[in-house]
């Protein structure tokens, strides 16, 4: 609890309910003397200005989160680099070292460095919630939501979904009508959750370094639009009926307390860190095992050791410069690493599923990352981290950005984010979905989001190819 007594929160919610109902049904005469809160509302929930203001505030939020959040993320990244560089130099080569550097630090560390940005986003959301503005957002959306056959009440789970989809699914309980609840839950998936954010941060940072904030904002918007469109689709196909009007609570504005904002932010951030330290740690170890075994041994396609020997002797006899020598050796080592991974279980799985993802522009690595994303979207980042840090120069485990940049283009990068956005968030969310809505709806959710993600990414990629 945030220090407020439950009685106070309950009373506030009741007044918010009354205020919302009265605002919806009663139109004041202009020039009436009103309270400050009412005067602010006259602008903020205005029929014309309300939506642009809402979008502007969201846009500012993402700009600040991305730009301001960059600094601490950079510090953490360079700190992590130095740390793994130190470990690399001080531990002799062994399987254990590979597990520590490529598996655990590459996987978990790669996610933890994003914590400052996640924190900033949650601070913003907490301020917007505690000040009472989020309810206004839902109130504004109510009008739009009615057009698609939902009401603004569904928007509250949507907003919570920006943090994590699991509490958002549970929040769907406040919707009494079963059709409304089902539609809200099914499309809640398209709200970019905290787990998807690291994927966006990574890819937007690599492919669109100049306007990463805008790119990420665009994904959030696409998610919302997709939710709107799919809600309409589900309303006219699977869940027929009209949405009844409901009260959109409008609590009075108030100054958020530092303590309240901090507690709200920390609760959610802690969830993120905890997930990284438990589920994702375990998955990173499993992924590492899949990436390492079976070992290639001497079954390389070319005789690399012979090539290295030749290079060594040419260098010895000074027929090539030291510079060329270094480059050539690195090239061979990279080739060897790639073959090593391709030979491993993970590599084989990636290649096996690659044909499905080929039309979307994904190679076997991105295909594999998407597959592991089923466990949780953060895992996408750690998979890619492991893939590229294993393949990269051994002394630079976390700076794999340039490798990814070389391997793909912005179109594929954006398409990958789009695909990540559209399929269901994680296994844990599916478990909650089943609990709240039953197994039938859960299975529908899986196929619905996977096929939608595939179709949208397919169209996007195939169209995009014409322009570049």
């Amino acid at each position: 609890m945030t220090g407020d007594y439950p009685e106070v929160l309950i009373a506030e919610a009741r007044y918010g309910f009354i205020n919302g109902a009265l605002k919806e049904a009663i139109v004041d005469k202009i020039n009436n003397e009103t309270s400050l809160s009412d005067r602010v509302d006259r602008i903020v929930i205005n029929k014309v200005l309300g939506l642009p203001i809402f979008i502007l505030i969201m846009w500012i939020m993402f700009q600040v989160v991305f730009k301001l959040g960059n600094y601490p993320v950079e510090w953490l990244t360079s700190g992590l680099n130095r740390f793994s560089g130190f470990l690399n130099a001080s531990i002799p080569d062994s399987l254990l070292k590979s597990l520590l550097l490529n598996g655990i630090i590459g996987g978990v560390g790669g996610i933890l460095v994003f914590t400052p940005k996640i924190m900033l986003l949650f601070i913003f959301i907490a301020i917007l919630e505690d000040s009472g503005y989020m309810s206004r957002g839902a109130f504004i959306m109510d009008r739009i939501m009615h057009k698609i056959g939902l009401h603004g009440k569904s928007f509250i789970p949507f907003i919570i979904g920006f943090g994590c989809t699991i509490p958002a699914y549970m929040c769907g309980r406040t919707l009494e009508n079963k059709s409304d609840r089902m539609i809200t839950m099914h499309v809640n998936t398209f709200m970019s959750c905290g787990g998807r954010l690291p994927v966006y941060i990574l890819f937007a940072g690599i492919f669109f370094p100049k306007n990463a904030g805008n790119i990420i904002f665009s994904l959030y918007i696409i998610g919302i639009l997709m939710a709107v469109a799919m809600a309409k689709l589900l309303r006219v196909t699977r869940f027929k009926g009209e949405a009844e009007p409901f009260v959109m609570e409008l609590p009075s504005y108030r100054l958020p307390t530092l303590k309240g904002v901090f507690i709200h932010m920390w609760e959610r951030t802690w969830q993120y860190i905890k997930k990284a330290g438990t589920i994702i740690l375990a998955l990173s170890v499993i992924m590492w095992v899949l990436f390492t075994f079976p070992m290639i041994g001497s079954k390389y396609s070319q005789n690399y050791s012979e090539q290295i020997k030749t290079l060594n002797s040419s260098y010895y006899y000074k027929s090539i410069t030291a510079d060329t020598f270094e480059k050539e050796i690195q090239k061979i080592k990279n080739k060897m690493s790639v073959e090593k991974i391709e030979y491993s279980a993970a590599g084989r799985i990636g290649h096996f599923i690659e044909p499905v993802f080929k039309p979307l522009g994904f190679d076997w690595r991105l295909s594999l990352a998407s597959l592991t994303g089923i466990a949780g979207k953060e895992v996408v980042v750690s998979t890619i981290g492991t893939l590229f840090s294993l393949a990269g120069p051994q002394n630079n485990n976390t700076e794999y950005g340039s490798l990814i940049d070389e391997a793909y283009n912005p179109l594929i990068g954006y398409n990958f984010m789009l695909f990540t956005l559209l399929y269901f968030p994680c296994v844990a969310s599916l478990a909650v979905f089943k609990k709240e809505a039953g197994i039938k709806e859960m299975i529908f959710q899986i196929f619905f989001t996977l096929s939608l993600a595939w179709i949208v990414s397919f169209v996007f990629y195939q169209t995009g190819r014409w322009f570049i």
Partner: protein
Amino acid sequence: MPKEFTIALAGSPNSGKTTIFNSITGSRQHVGNYPGVTVEQKSGLKKYKDYLINLVDLPGTYSLTAYSMEEVVARDYILNNKPEIILNIVDSSNLERNLYLATQLIELETPLIIVFNMSDVLLKAKEKVDIEMLSSLFGAPVVLTVGSKSRGIEELLGKAVELFEKTQERKKIIINYGEEIENEIYKIKKLLKNSNELLCKFNLRWLAVKILEQDKEVLIYLKKTLNVGEFLDLSNFINIQ
């Protein structure tokens, strides 16, 4: 034989509750006490079409918490006597404050009619008042009256009979208390789920909200009803807050 049913009038002290009561019953009134307390109970009879309506005037309250004797009496009457219809008389010139009681009656899932009394003032002050929308949002019919001029009383009785005849078709309204409180409500409901007696008598959501409000009467009642282990679980839970 006329059909008989009871209407209870609830509302804040200056909502014009008594005026409405008088203009419905006329002179057929009876003044007594609520059992065990010195709070006055006024009741009266009204013949309307084929119905014989027993009208009970509840003590004037702004809320249904356990802070005052009046509130406890009004609440106990509603919970124990289960009147067929509750009229919540509301002072239209001060809607925000007066509708607080309505939110609690909605939560109790009582068959409710919200009466906007002194509505002439409201209609004059506002550009537009959408009664249909209000009824739909509150999940209860809203009727405009002017008690002092006996305006709207016929419509009010008509609505009461309508509601009495089809009580099961009411729309269920849930007041959303926000993520934190909702989570607590969910946990408390889970704790109480196994207690059959409570399930029959009360709406569990309402009970959970009352527990979170630390309502004295409700806590005393629970202490009597639940077995020791269950009550300990519950009180531990509340103390954590």
